């Protein structure tokens, strides 16, 4: 007998995967978020979260840290990506590789190294927020450089020439050609840096000397004691992330294609 697979049958394993590892867990979170200890429907967690100033300030702090991290990453990554993408250097991929290699080294090891460095220069425990942001920028920079580099690389050189030909100076060319055409890369870079920097509490714990609490840490701690509250915080984070992705235009078909090919 010849085995024949239609596209539908080939899709089954993925459907199963999505069901068990994405859809059911989401439903479980949703269920826990809106129930109390007796498993009765309850909005108490929701109300408690938004009436508790410490919880609210944590989410604001997380947002601020994530925003600063993303902004700093963008400010550092854009010039690097731009210079690399436009240079005619033959070995430029080596330089790109150097920027990206840290990604391949164990994450915990990297954070530990930064911790050692900070304690060596005496900053550990002195400037917790600075240290946290410093560590996050260091960790997430490659995720910003790569999508920017690929989108900038795809901009046809003749467009720059056309702009100059039509009388555009370097500033006009940048603001009216380069920047708008690299928006997809900026959007996917932001998505890839903003989200982890809201949740990655390993960095904030180790470098912020456990004095900086971000929303990820919060969720982790609640799941030790109160699954219902933990689920509620996770759900709220999900909504924040969803909103920020939507705001940066990350859901456009074209953008995912252009930004994601790293």
């Amino acid at each position, binding site marked *: 007998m010849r085995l024949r697979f239609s596209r539908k049958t080939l899709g089954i394993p993925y459907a199963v995967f999505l069901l068990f590892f994405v859809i059911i867990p989401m439903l479980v979170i949703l269920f826990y978020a809106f129930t109390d200890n007796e498993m009765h429907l309850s909005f108490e967690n929701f109300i408690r979260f938004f009436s508790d100033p410490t919880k609210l300030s944590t989410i604001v702090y997380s947002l601020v840290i994530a925003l600063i991290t993303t902004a700093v990453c963008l400010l550092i990554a854009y010039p690097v990506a731009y210079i690399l993408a436009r240079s005619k250097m033959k070995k430029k991929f080596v330089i790109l590789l150097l920027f990206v290699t840290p990604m391949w080294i164990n994450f915990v090891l990297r954070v530990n190294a930064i911790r050692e460095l900070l304690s060596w220069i005496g900053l550990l425990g002195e400037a917790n927020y600075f240290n946290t942001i410093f560590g996050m920028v260091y960790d997430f920079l490659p995720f910003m450089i790569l999508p920017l580099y690929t989108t900038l690389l795809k901009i046809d050189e003749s467009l720059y020439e056309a702009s*100059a*030909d039509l009388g555009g100076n370097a500033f006009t060319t940048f603001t009216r050609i380069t920047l708008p055409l690299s928006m997809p890369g900026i959007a996917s870079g932001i998505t890839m840096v903003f989200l982890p920097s809201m949740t990655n509490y390993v960095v904030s714990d180790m470098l912020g000397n456990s004095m900086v609490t971000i929303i990820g840490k919060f969720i982790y701690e609640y799941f030790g004691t109160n699954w219902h509250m933990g689920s509620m915080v996770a759900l709220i984070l999900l909504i924040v992330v969803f909103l920020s992705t939507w705001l940066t235009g990350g859901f456009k078909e074209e953008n995912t294609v252009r930004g994601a090919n790293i």
Partner: protein
Amino acid sequence: MAEHIIELQDVTKYYDDNLVIDHVNLYVNKGEFITFLGPSGCGKTTTLRMIAGFDLPTSGKILLNGKDISLLPPNKRPVNTVFQRYALFPHLNVFENVAFGLKCKRVMNTYRNDEGKEYTKKERLSKKEIAGKVQRALELVDLEGFEKRSISTLSGGQQQRVAIARAIVNEPEILLLDEPLGALDLKMRKEMQIELKEMHKRLGITFIYVTHDQEEALTMSDTIVVMADGIVQQIGTPTDVYNEPANTFVADFIGESNIFNGTVVGDRKVRFCGKIFDCVDDFERNEPVDVVVRPEDVIMCAPEQGALKGTVISVVFKGIHYEITVQVGKYEVVVQSTESRKEGDVIGLNIEPDEIHLMKPKYTTNIFDGVITKHNTVEFADGEFECDVTQLYPGSHIDDEEYLVTASGEKLDLTGTEVRVEVGLTDIEISDDQNAGGTVGNIISIIYKGDHYRLIVRTNGEDEEDFVFATDDLWNENDLVSVIIPKDKIKLSLKHAEDKKK
């Protein structure tokens, strides 16, 4: 005398170490339609890019209205370009694309202040002015109503028109067009050729056009600049370039040609295809020349009335004429005529004296700089060849230890000696086997000369030397071949009187 709007003075351009423009001198008259024509890699686009300002000349000057603009950035030059693949901004719509240049523009406006004093201010164009200019430009290219369309929804021809509108809306002194019709299909191309020509008349500005299509160049231009290998081969009107090609390259590149090797045998008499013809060009007696005859200038007649007699070997119908190939002795002559003949017919051929064009041959021999190796071979043109080093010193011989012993008994070590290497045009062979010869290269040019082909092989290494030679075999352009030169055909002479002595 016409005004020179652009003048190139001794312009040379290197990309890294590659020479792409070699001491080019030319000028463009104000208001004319000039075309840079040549095969790919001839330097025509680079020349255009230097006028636009995208590339800077390595040496030499570019003058605009007599002012040196060689180092001026593109945004400061009153020229606009229509790019090869249009280079439209994909994130802007048609209106925004066309308005781009106008939005960058600053104009000087003169005002009178309260005290009655005049003062000038640098200002942007108003929105209304921009909209008006864009609309007129779009009308000129027949794209009214397309303002809001996104670039990606336009066809190739429409994109082409947007690109033209985007350039001419700035009212440049010169419009540069870099193979603008290359991406269009044949019919569209013909239409755009006529439209561009019309536009040139209407706008009255200078057009500098780059193409590899000889027909396009002949149809559209007031002046054609034929380029090859970074060198200007000929500058002239389309009629001049077609009727009086300056050399065999131009003759072969523009239109069809019969090209023969000939010898001047007397006062305005030339011998080729085994017969003596009257001609109008004056050359020294016994001088070898290239003879060019256009196929439409060969007249068929009865066998006994022709200066040449031959047999028809092929007849091809080409629409408005027949292309008839005639075997005359060992030569092939191509004839274009509205009359047909049958294969196997014996016919006579005549050529009027003023249709026989004589040219000084560009190549008479191959000369290279070489160095003798320790094995008494010679290195040149990215390769190593066996040679007879004893010809450097008359009466010398090689001893058992590979030293050269001169006639007077002096022992010489020739290693590292710089020599001049000369190889005749008929002394070179090529082979598919890349190990068969002393060096390898690609065939960059093939010209048929009636009974043989003249090939140019350019070596692949750093030296990039050209070997010019005759062969009976037909090869293809770009074939990778090895160059074989028999040991006794390599003529060596010393470059310096001083020699290394043992």
